[in-house]
């Protein structure tokens, strides 16, 4: 079945908006240990969009160090594992 191109684009925009709206109110912070309240405050002061969000802290020891923030469709990766992986990729090239 062939879908009209305009209809497809409108649907896409609608879905993206819905995903954003769903993710806007919540955020996940992955860290290798459970964050304290002070550290969470530090996060909200550094990442302003976290102020209006419900934050969930998940422990992920694969990160080694640092953090990963998942907010809607956005991911901010500040983990040590990713930094090491980036170095490895640059070494392999």
């Amino acid at each position: 079945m062939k879908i009209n191109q305009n209809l497809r684009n409108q649907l896409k925009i609608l879905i993206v908006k819905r995903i954003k709206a769903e993710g806007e109110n919540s955020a996940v912070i992955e860290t290798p240990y459970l964050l304290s309240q002070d550290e969470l405050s530090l996060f909200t002061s550094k990442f302003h969009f976290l102020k209006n969000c419900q934050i969930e802290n998940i422990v992920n020891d694969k990160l080694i160090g640092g953090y990963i923030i998942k907010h809607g469709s956005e991911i901010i990766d500040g983990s040590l594992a990713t930094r090491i992986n980036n170095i490895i990729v640059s070494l392999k090239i």
Partner: protein
Amino acid sequence: MEALGIDIKLLIAQIVNFTLFFFLFKRFMAKPFFSYLDKLQKNNQEKEKILGDVKKIEEQAKKNKSDSLKLAREEANKIVSEAKKNAIYQHEEIIKKAHQEAEDIRLKASKQLNDEKNILYSEVKEKLIDTSTLIVKQALRGYLDESQQKELMAKILESDKVYEN
């Protein structure tokens, strides 16, 4: 005359004999005899002429044969010379081609060897990096306690930029 031992009668008889013989010879034999001699002479002359012609032809034939032989020898020498030249050229061409083929094979083998070396080097490098990474990650996991993790987190957050939106 008799004292000298000459017999007149015999002398006269001999003269008459001779005259008679001369007359008979001249009358009946001289013409065919001279004719025969002329014929013999003509035959001889003709023979000599034919012999001369034959000699000339023979000499011409010898000369022709010699010329032909000379020409044939020259032609043969020329053919042999050209054949030698061709053989040398072909020999050189074959050697040149063989050298070229050997060089191609050598280059191909060298390239193949180099490629294999590079592949091996890349594989070893990749494995070394993977192993080192694994060791580093494991070491860091084992080394970093919670206080160090907190310190590291503070440093990372400090170095990261501020997100306004």
